[in-house]
């Protein structure tokens, strides 16, 4: 096998390292947590997360995916779901979220839609008795997410004890729990928005077309694209000419517009709202 020598001196780049770390987290999780499901919002991050899971498990996703459905997703999003749920052969649970009236009326409207999602998630966790939920949040999205752990325990009400998180270092995580606890697993925690897009390009991962710039009647001649995709009425496009993967990546290298600027809820309009939502179990 003389040709072996040709590959000597293999070196990893930043994306290789990010990928290897996520696969490591997935495999630790799969060994330690017995009843797991993964959230799929159809956004770029959760598509990357499914891709990484398939790398970790050699093409399979050996646990169900959950979509907390408010029936308010954009049409492109539902089309994307129908196509790739079939193409990737995943086991998708569509969980209908409880209505708006069941949420805390003191919250702003956009936060109440988010609280519906939390309600749907809590219901499906309870019904199916999941003790681990894989979520595609990243540290660079938002201040409280920047303080998260890879393995983040929640009590039986889904509450996050943010002031007393378990130590986590040297890739040793809290993976055993008293009964009644469930754990959020965050395999994308260390990725940035830019790296997600670089990886989507490198690995040829499909995304909802709303991420690419186009004209919308309500914005006239302006080119607009979604930086982050959420429900109708609480997520908006931002002005941007980036219509290809290359253009998005170039834009992100230089932009000073925050990723969640198209989402009133995540943009700290009311600084305590997001933390309240997350402490109560929001993603």
């Amino acid at each position, binding site marked *: 096998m003389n040709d072996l020598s040709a590959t000597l001196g293999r070196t990893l780049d930043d994306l290789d390292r990010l990928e290897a770390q996520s*696969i490591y987290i997935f495999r630790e999780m799969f*060994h330690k947590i017995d009843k797991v499901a993964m959230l799929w919002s159809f956004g770029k991050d959760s598509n990357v997360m499914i891709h990484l899971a398939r790398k970790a498990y*050699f093409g399979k996703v050996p646990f169900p995916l959950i979509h907390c459905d408010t029936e308010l997703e954009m049409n492109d999003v539902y089309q994307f779901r129908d196509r790739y749920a079939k193409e990737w052969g995943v086991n998708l649970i569509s969980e209908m979220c409880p209505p708006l009236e069941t949420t805390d009326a003191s919250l702003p409207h956009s936060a109440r839609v988010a609280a519906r999602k939390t309600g749907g998630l809590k219901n499906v966790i309870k019904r199916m008795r999941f003790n681990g939920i894989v979520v595609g949040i990243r540290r660079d999205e938002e*201040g409280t997410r*920047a303080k998260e752990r890879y393995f983040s325990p929640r009590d039986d009400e889904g509450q996050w004890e943010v*002031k007393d998180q378990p130590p986590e*270092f040297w890739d040793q995580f809290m993976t055993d729990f008293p009964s009644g606890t469930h754990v959020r697993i965050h395999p994308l925690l260390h990725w940035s928005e830019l790296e997600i897009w670089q990886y989507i390009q490198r690995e040829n991962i499909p995304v909802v077309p709303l991420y690419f710039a186009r004209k919308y009647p309500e914005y006239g001649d302006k080119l607009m694209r979604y930086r982050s995709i959420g429900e109708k009425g609480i997520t908006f496009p931002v002005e941007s000419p980036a219509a290809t993967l290359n253009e998005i990546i170039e834009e992100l290298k230089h932009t000073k517009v925050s990723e969640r600027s198209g989402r009133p809820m995540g943009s700290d309009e009311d600084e305590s709202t997001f933390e309240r939502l997350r402490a109560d179990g929001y993603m």
Partner: protein
Amino acid sequence: MGSVAMKDDVARRQLKIVIVGHVDHGKSTLIGRLFYETDSLPNGKFEQITDQCQRRGMPFEWAFLVDALQAERDQGVTIDTTQIRLRTADRDYIIIDAPGHRQFLKNMVSGAANSEAALLVIDANEGVGEQSRRHGYLLQLLGVQQVSVAINKMDLVGYSEKRFNGVRDEYVAYLSSIGIIPTHVIPISGKEGDCLTSPSANMPWYQGPNIMDSLGSFSPKPDLNDLPLRLPVQDIYKFDERRIIVGRIESGTLRVGDDILFSPSNELAKVASFERWGGDLKDNSPQVEATAGESVGLTLTEQIFVQRGDLISHSNDAPELTNLLRARIFWLGSTALEVGSRYLLKINTAEHQVEVREIEQVLNTNDLSRVKANRIEQYEVGEVLLRLRGLAAVEDFSINHVTGRFVLLDEYRIAGGGTINLSGIANQRSELAVKSENLHPFESRIDPVCRSMANGHVGAVLWFTGLPSSGKSTLALELQNKLFAQGNQTFVLDGDNIRSRLNADLGFEPQDRTENIRRVGEVSALFADAGMIVISAFVSPYEEDRDRARAAVGNRFHCIYIDADAEICEERDPHGLWKKVRQGEISNFTGVDAPYEVPAYPELVINTGEYSIDQCVDQLLDYVNSQLVEPVRSL
């Protein structure tokens, strides 16, 4: 920043930098201001922070960039560690803010342990604080070798060169006494922005590098490709016809065809292939080599018994094996570490039960004095001797950081971390090697590995010990039924089939009890050699006798203590033995007029007084399935 030429993405390499130091010495403030000075704040962030501070009736607070929690903002203190990206023309930094309050040291460690370099911040006005020293010491312990010092709040001391020199000399002397030579010592004001990205007009006497210069001088941690191969087994997958061993290569490189050794089991094998899933990419060329940092999947040319926690090395360059560890520990648990305490030790993917055998010294990180003590309190550092149940594959921390460090779990949480010092500790691999040499004449026998592959489990002895009527035989027979139903090879040895036949010549005097157990130990070993899970249920009251049985069987011996109070046993008394004792018909009865020594280190304790028979059998089944049956995850 758009006008600055960016370095080619391929050449860029992330660098993780942790900011540490005493509480209130201005770490979070420095980070906020650094983002402002490098023009890295997102649009609207400055205005937003202004607004948030006004609402609290406080002056502008740079720390709000990273102190995102309400409690942090309200109390003006960093509680948990944060990671934030700083993208410059040359490089992507991951800036890790670590809390300086003593109470949040576990969060400081969570942030600092993963960093490649550190910036130690000291308040020029307050001078060197308790946590300044402790953090410095912990960096050294965690293996963070690149360190710069920022002497902060120079505005509060009138930008005095004399004050700077005083603090610098004191702190640099401390650092050098623990083996850290700082790259730079820089006078700054985080609040006012002096010396963060450019020279400061307020300090013309300082001509050295600024903060960004200093961060730029750090290099990423080198890959561990040049060290011997170390690949901890994470799991074994059987999603299809392939049996894939997965894990991350922590050091070295591995190629198809390499001869590899699994430790501590000492099994040899050859790499048949690397397995991977390539997504939609059309790169179907087989992978022939993998290197440090990669999460890999591999298959073997021959089937051997593999478990999570095994450490793969090349067969000619193996890690050391030991059941005794000397380590330097930093303790985070709220309950002190004490001599005799037991913990779960995790080293990479391996887990071991350990007992603290000795605390050799406790170190005062303030004045570096060392004292002998019986306990290590929360946030203290000390040197300990740990005794492991079974052998662990380890290395000296100075030789390989990744295989030379571990964490200790108390209940569910990580309660401490440690780095291994193997000087004076014997490598027990040589003893194993001798043993296998002794086996050489019997090579023509069926290989035990082949037996275990055929059976789907290893041969082993489950040694049930406990008082008469504690439930040993009942559980043994129930467990046997369940194991047999699962398709396992299993057999029960107990008084009924041993005492009446093989050992019919023995009574209940101490020397006869000893001989009884010696023979049972040897018979059990033969059954285990035959590949069976043999359940030996005997009162076996003496620790010495059980140890002899363990020696006969080797590491396939599992001591299981069937625990029930004497009162409960007497109440059950299924054979009327206790009654006969009370009536004076039987003497030398264990638990009454003969002693029972409770096992000091059982592998498992089953409490039949507290749990039902079904619950006890479930606990036993869980144990057997996790320890003896090949752990393979499949769909």
